[in-house]
């Protein structure tokens, strides 16, 4: 579905070359839940941006359903993100002057998504909050609205970049449960530094210094340095 072949991302930061991703080879299968684990600054978010077309590789290839993402125009990539991809970011960004329901609808690729959006909010436990504005919602509720926004319209891939980082542990687990359960047939790419949030992942890769340090983290021996709890602690 998404294939990276030797994909690299290098950028300049105050005159210094930063290798955010180094020759990554990775394939995402349809419906797969892929966890990307790694410490802060390891390049896991950059990898997510490469996979979703938000950043273009400086080397190698990134393809979505056989089409080169860098080869697409800016508009084509935008349309692709709006139609096929859903996003949940670390901070529960919502448009402040829109209600929860309107925020969900703002990402719906089709016009008649009202009932689907309401249904999603219901399933996410926000049935009574659809008319509320973001400032009237808690952090956890806002992130659940973001989840609904990422799922509305039946996305082929949902990208989640540390979606639980700004939430308490229980709220984070709840958001993850909703993402897993409500994504239907869509693939899920989840970036986190907290392995406990990757319960139910089909595959977890570990990134370090912009490289895939471990292509199947659960299959390898023992926890590595900074990921926190041992792999056996991950609820399955």
């Amino acid at each position, binding site marked *: 579905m998404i294939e990276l072949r030797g994909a690299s991302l290098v950028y300049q930061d105050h005159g210094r070359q930063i290798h955010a991703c180094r020759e990554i080879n990775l394939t995402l299968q349809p419906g797969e839940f892929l966890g990307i684990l790694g410490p802060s600054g390891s390049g896991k*978010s950059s990898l997510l*941006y490469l996979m979703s077309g*938000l*950043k273009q590789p400086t080397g190698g290839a990134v393809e979505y359903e056989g089409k080169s993402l860098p080869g697409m125009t*800016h*508009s084509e990539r*935008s*349309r*692709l*993100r*709006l*139609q096929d*991809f*859903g*996003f949940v*970011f*670390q*901070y529960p*960004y*919502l*448009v*402040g*002057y*829109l209600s929860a329901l*309107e925020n969900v609808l*703002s*990402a719906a690729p089709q016009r008649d998504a009202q009932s689907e959006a309401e249904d999603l909010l219901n399933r996410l436990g926000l049935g009574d909050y659809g008319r509320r504005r973001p400032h009237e919602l808690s952090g956890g509720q806002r992130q659940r609205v973001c989840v609904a*926004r990422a799922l509305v319209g039946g996305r082929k891939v949902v990208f989640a*970049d540390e979606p639980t980082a700004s939430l308490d542990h229980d709220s984070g687990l709840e958001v993850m449960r909703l993402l897993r359960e409500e994504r239907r047939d869509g693939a899920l790419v989840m970036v986190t530094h907290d392995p406990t949030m990757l319960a139910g992942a089909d595959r977890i890769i570990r990134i370090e210094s912009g490289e895939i340090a471990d292509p199947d983290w659960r299959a390898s021996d023992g926890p590595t340095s900074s990921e926190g709890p041992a792999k056996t602690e991950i609820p399955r």
Partner: protein
Amino acid sequence: MKRNAAKTGPLAGVIVLAVTLIVSIVALMNSIPLSVKEIFGYTKQFTGLTPRGNASIVDALEKTAREEAPKPLDRLIRARASNAEVQSLVGPWPFAVYGMKQDDMRWFVERMKGRLEGRWPEPGKPEAVVSEPVARNLGLKMGDSILGPDDSDRFSPQEVKIVGMVQGAEWMILTDIDYHSANHFPPVDGLMLFAGSAEDQAALDAWAEERFKGEPVRVFAWPLLEEETDAMFRHLYRILNVVIATLVIVITIMMAMLMNIHQAQRTQEFGLLQAIGYERSRLVRRILGEISIVVIGGWLLGAALAYGFMRLVKAQYMDPQAFSLNPVDPVAYLYTIPVPIVIFAAALITVLRRFAESDPVAIVERRLA
């Protein structure tokens, strides 16, 4: 945009106030020359000729006028004129008191489309007929003195009472020519030449101006009055233009800063929407659409508010003193046109610059908001 009224409202409000302010300043400034022209509007009806330095040439002057006028004269009135004063927005303003025979006075008032209430001044008596705008301007009514020995602005050796009030738009103070000749300076007869139509009157004005150039004759004609009035206020308008230009620049800079702050506050929104797949061009179009509505709506509301305000000023302050004010003065509204245009341009530059520099990933990743 409606949902974002807390932010767009103040922006529109600034434009509303700016437009109201500019219209008010220009319309009130324009009311001064407008009042002057309205006070002397009666001069559209005739061409005035007055001897200068030698009063005895008036007969020759009359003969020249009758024989050489390019258009047939509807009437020629021999009258006396002296100075009085009426009130204007810029203080006392000189105004002529005409002394005429009663039949000339009747004809003159009829020509001005006036309707007399009361009676005409009796020959030789200190009596006057004034038009309603003059009475309103000076706060006088029937029976009051229009001229008098104790009034330095409107002097006459005797109390000249108002015995007739002319209902009509033109300003006039008419006294009997015998009383006027016996009591008022200068002792010079003047000629009032009336043509049959407005076009003929204009031709007569042009002829008189050309015919008596370099001669000891003073020509009074509407085009000359207009020219003199415009020249009189030219400097004032230059100052006004500087004031308005400064105002427009200040408001525009202020609005551009407000727009910048407004757009900066929406950085997160635009970054987020771009990240989830909104095309940049779609967002730019949307923002420019919103700005257009704010700017055009603000201008329309400002124009409406200014109109309402000018109507109020006219009704409460100007009309009671017979001062002129045009609430739909086109020049006043034209002065406001740069405001929405320049603000839109400033907003356009701000938005395009922001979008050119913005990186949606940086916004959603680094929490730039």
